[in-house]
């Protein structure tokens, strides 16, 4: 999937070169953060010892990925056609996570499903309401009542 011959003209940034450098950046960040923890000695390694080894390992692997990435797919060739939708889905889930303990499970889940089905998928209002409300009530009954999994309740007791 990621091996493609390089085009003859021009220098294009390759996907593996970018991802390799991102890994190196992550390794450097971990190394920087790890300074706060004692390294200990070889006979008594401290809490910073293994993260330090891992930062070196990640950095080396990142460099290898970047250096051997000359023939990988050009960065511009990666298709992001569904990216906008993916971001919208993630953002909606993020709002739901924020609301979960504030509005309670049932209201949050019903609202989330109404957003997905009504706004994003443009389904019929009756189906949106049935699935949204039905899902939140049925799963609440199943998990909170039958399986006794504690789920958050709204300040209004619902």
């Amino acid at each position: 999937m990621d091996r493609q011959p390089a085009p003859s003209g021009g220098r294009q940034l390759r996907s593996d070169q970018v991802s390799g450098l991102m890994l190196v950046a992550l390794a450097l960040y971990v190394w920087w953060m790890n300074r706060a923890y004692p390294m200990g000695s070889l006979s008594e390694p401290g809490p910073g010892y293994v993260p330090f080894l891992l930062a070196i390992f990640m950095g080396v692997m990142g460099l290898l990925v970047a250096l051997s990435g000359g023939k990988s797919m050009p960065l511009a060739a990666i298709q992001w056609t569904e990216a906008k939708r993916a971001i919208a889905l993630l953002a909606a889930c993020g709002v739901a996570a924020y609301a979960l303990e504030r509005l309670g499970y049932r209201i949050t889940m019903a609202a989330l499903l109404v957003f997905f089905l009504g706004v994003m998928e443009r389904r019929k209002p009756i189906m949106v309401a049935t699935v949204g409300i039905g899902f939140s009530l049925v799963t609440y009954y199943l998990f909170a009542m039958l399986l006794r999994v504690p789920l958050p309740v709204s300040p209004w007791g619902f």
Partner: protein
Amino acid sequence: MVETFNNLLLGFSVALQPQVLMYAFVGCFIGTLVGMLPGVGPLAGISMLLPATFGLDPIIAIVLLAGVYYGAMYGGSTTSILIRLPGEAASVMTCIDGYAMTQQGRAGPALAIAAIGSFVAGTLGVVGLMLLAPTLATFALRFGPPEYTALLLMGLLVLAYMTGGSIPKTLAMAGFGLMLGMIGIDAMSGYTRFSFEVVELSDGIGIVPVAVGLFGISEILLTATQDIPSLPKNPSLRELMPSRTEFKQSIGPIARGSALGFLIGIIPGSAHIISSFISYGVERRVSKTPERFGHGAIEGVAGPESANNAAATGAFIPMMALGVPTSPVTAVMIAAIMVHGISPGPMLITEQPKLFWGFVASMYVGNVVLLILNLPLVGLFVSLLRIPYSYLYPCILAFCILGCYSVSNSVVDVWIMLSMGGVGYALRKFGFDLAPVALGLVLAPMLELSLRQSLAMSAGSYAIFIERPISAVMLGFGMLMLLFSLKPLLSKSNKKDWRSSAGLDEVS
């Protein structure tokens, strides 16, 4: 042998209890559904069910989750054969010849052979588990920290070899997973590391939010715009019957797939996925008429389907005998057992014989349940696929949030899951394999503890790993695998190695 038989009888006395039987059935049913639905693999399915098992007896919990796992292996084949849509990654190879058979009007025999092959492989796998796990557990009693360190390192190196894609990318992902495992309180010193002053992160990052995010959420982000293609007519029970020739052609692939899948299952990595790819490659190679492959060869269904089921069973051996997960799925199952205060490992079989043998016996029962579910009830399962994906994926996302939140009643877990979903989406776009991340996360605490204990034992000398014979052999084997995996990179020859020939590049 007599002892094994007596233990198995003990197991059946547990597995045939009505309550255990019921949960085995429920697990298999949910697993079949999970295997059929795109976006919900066995891992996401098991993770979502995990909180519901906390209040159950540990035997029932493990029977339920194992049922979901091997049920998913069965279920994945149905959508692959009927609509060329693998419900989960292990069924990708079944699409090729299974769907070709459907187009020729032979969907029934393809579904039947997939179910029969899965049943045979699953049952043979349980026999292997029954015979091998106790022996391995006895051997593992000799293991100290250096041996465990070597075992875990060997696992990661073998994973790099088996994955088939870019070795540095696979190892970098394992390193990323290990780094995630460093978050939280250090067990030896009590230091809280990389927690960004978030109290919940002091306990570390759990496998469930990471696994659901990486595998479940990222899959939905990638596929939410797609819809499931139209379904063919449901095959009737009579149409399911394969011909005598088809039966004959399937015997060899089922036997080879079972053996191959079981052996690969013991090795770390996405064994059930890898085994189906390798099995397809092997069948194509041993066939006298390889040109039939891709055009409806029943061997192309029988081999991979048997292999992925046998691998699912084989993966339980290191989990039960060593307490070492070889895949994210077994890692979640270990978490499920540990919630009940039971630690999997060499002592499990002797200390918890009812749990181990009850689990083994329940797998025999589960395989029979799955055969019953997958043949006569195939029409019912297929009907569920008629629900448009635009209705399914929002419900799957909501289930993911519910499942992650319920594990420890923490919104932080939901945030971790969503972040991992985004990270997984981007990593997949850049061609990274995600299984090593989950595996690294699970192995990190074990690896760190055993490495530091080993160094303390040897007064800081790394020579301890080569002075002790068991760890030296394991590290040697791991290094050998690493050298083998580097060979295609160093060699200038255009000849493909066996992993590429088996189509393993497509796994990553």
